[in-house]
């Protein structure tokens, strides 16, 4: 790594943390009240979510290794950032995710095999956006931030109570589109939450290459209300998201959250992180593991952690088995699908192309061609 990117300017914004590494609750004047009403059962549910999610992620990686998926983008280490935020949303808040928000989609009810079907190359989209209020996953870095801005403008125009939420990474903040999205959302004071998972890396590039300030400080410059939170602290993420959504619902406009986390795994199954980052960094972050953190907290609270863990484990086992079964039996799509949904109303050249190709295939099978 080059020296020129090390001296990042000290940020103005503090990093909110509600749980320290030992799982103790640390007070936070601004965010504490957003935890009001959260029960031990809720915490246990967070734990189950994160454990199941980690298992889903592991299973997907394994399935990729076995040739069942074309690729997979692990979320290992980002469970709290995803679960803490999505669990703070309402079901009718509309989410615009990138390609790594498996946890967000799953928590909203998308089936694991539907999630994976896209990575298998069997389909272009794993869910119906209007059913789960999550847009199609986005691969083009940063594009979805503008869609969220537009959706938020729509909420504002029609007087809705919802919030549009864009998820993206630290690398994405360098794209023009993300910056334009901040500008649009700010200009119309639209109810949009920009949720940035700063996992320290954009493939092989450290976050300091993208920004010499804290990413959260960047957003402030746009006049967007911003929080920087410990992204491995599910309570801090949850509380900040609650705060941001409340801000939007009060008509106060867009917000930004930088969730400081770490991509513990490879960028995708095609990536080899040993080529560009030191093991020491990984070790440092292991200590901050989001699941351990919550387990510690439940322990501090004196809860029956083991039974919660057991329950989570059972759910994870079941999910993994079902998932493997579903994926390994997933049929390939029919060739006719190639031509479907290119247009919402079939047009003549589209119709002919389909007809010709299916005829060609049929002739071929007849041994004619």
């Amino acid at each position: 790594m080059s020296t020129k990117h090390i001296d990042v300017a000290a940020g103005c914004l503090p990093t909110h943390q509600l749980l320290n590494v030992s799982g103790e609750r640390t007070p936070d004047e601004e965010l504490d009240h957003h935890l009001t009403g959260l029960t031990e059962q809720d915490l246990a549910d967070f734990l189950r979510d994160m454990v199941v999610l980690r298992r889903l992620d592991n299973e997907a990686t394994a399935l990729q290794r076995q040739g069942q998926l074309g690729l997979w983008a692990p979320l290992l280490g980002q469970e709290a950032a995803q679960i803490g935020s999505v669990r703070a949303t309402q079901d009718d808040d509309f989410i615009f995710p990138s390609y790594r928000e498996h946890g967000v989609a799953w928590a909203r009810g998308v089936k694991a095999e539907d999630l994976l079907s896209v990575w298998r190359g069997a389909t272009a989209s794993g869910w119906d956006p209007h059913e789960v209020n999550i847009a199609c996953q986005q691969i083009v870095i940063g594009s979805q931030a503008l869609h969220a801005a537009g959706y938020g403008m729509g909420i504002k125009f029609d007087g809705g109570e919802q919030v549009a939420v864009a998820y993206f990474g630290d690398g994405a903040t360098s794209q023009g589109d993300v910056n334009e999205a901040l500008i649009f959302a700010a200009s119309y004071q639209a109810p949009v939450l920009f949720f940035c998972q700063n996992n320290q890396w954009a493939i092989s590039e450290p976050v300091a290459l993208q920004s010499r300030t804290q990413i959260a400080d960047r957003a402030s410059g746009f006049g967007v209300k911003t929080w920087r939170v410990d992204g491995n602290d599910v309570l801090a993420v949850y509380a900040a998201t609650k705060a941001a959504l409340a801000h939007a619902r009060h008509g106060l406009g867009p917000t930004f959250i930088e969730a400081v986390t770490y991509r513990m795994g490879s960028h995708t199954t095609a990536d080899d992180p040993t080529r560009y980052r030191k093991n020491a960094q990984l070790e440092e972050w292991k200590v901050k593991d989001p699941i351990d953190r919550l387990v510690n907290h439940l322990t501090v609270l004196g809860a029956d952690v083991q039974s919660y863990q057991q329950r989570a484990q059972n759910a994870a086992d079941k999910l993994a088995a079902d998932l493997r079964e579903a994926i390994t039996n997933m049929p390939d799509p029919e060739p006719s699908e190639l031509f479907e949904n290119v247009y919402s109303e079939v047009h003549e050249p589209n119709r002919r192309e389909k007809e010709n190709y299916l005829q060609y295939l049929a002739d071929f099978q007849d041994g004619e061609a």
Partner: protein
Amino acid sequence: MSTSMMKALNQSLRDALTEDEKVVLLGEDIGTLGGVFRITDGLKAEFGEHRVVDTPLAESGIVGSAIGLAYRGYRPVVEIQFDGFTYPAFDQLVSQLAKLHFRSRGRVKMPVTVRIPYGGGIGSPEHHSESPEAYFSHTAGLRVFAPSSVEDAYVMLRQAIDCDDPVIFFEPKRRYHEKAEVELRTPEKTGSPKAKVLNVGDDVTVVGYGPTVYTLKDAVLAAEDEGIGLEVIDLRCLDPLDLDTVADSVKHTGKLVVVHEASRTSGIGAEICAQITETCFDYLEHAPIRVTGFDIPYPPSRLESHHLPDLDKVMHAVDTVMRRNETHTGGAK
């Protein structure tokens, strides 16, 4: 009633805004100013700032936020101020707008209309006279409309807005002031417009769209003087291309000239010539030829008359396919 193309477009937007509250207009300077071409004149005052929206100066932002609005159930109509400012939005147009219906397996509709005043001939500086339609013709998932007449401007814009697919709507800006006696009526059907035979003739099929159609109408008269009958076809829609109409004509005339302002190489003319050669090979008496802009960046305005297809170049091409001038291929290259 005599109406200009500008007024027809304005009325088309007004009627769409009136009939469907989900229609919203987005663009730079389209609100208070009414657009640099005044196409949206008076609409913000009439429908309010939540229906006619002045946007920050960012084309990717405009198209990207229109996509978000479509996710929310809106029917956004976007104005790109000039053709040459389409490109900052290219990624949103090509990777998002064009593909989202396919990506979502039909669950998300993208009824977004992107209005682009295009083409040259108005003495403008760089980036104000481009014809980028071929880029979108090559991009699956988009429809591309290119009206040439006052009536079509009204009707086709209504159709574009009603269409559940994204439509890139090219307005021939140098014809904005053209007038016609027309009654502006709400179209019955959406879908994509078909090509239209504007003049029936026996000798040469001449195909154009948008700003060049007026030139082709002049050519009909000029050719008549020379005893040549031109069958003139206005394509109207560039994607999907309605080449059945063109093929029917070429089967009759045996000769084809395609005209557009855009650069020649890999332009829409190439596609038309290639397809017509496929479907009409046995009928062709001469290779289809093209009259187009040159393969150069759009030139400074004091040279643009050379760059643009004009009556002389079209007639020269007609003579060429009639095998009346054998020495060289001239303006048609």
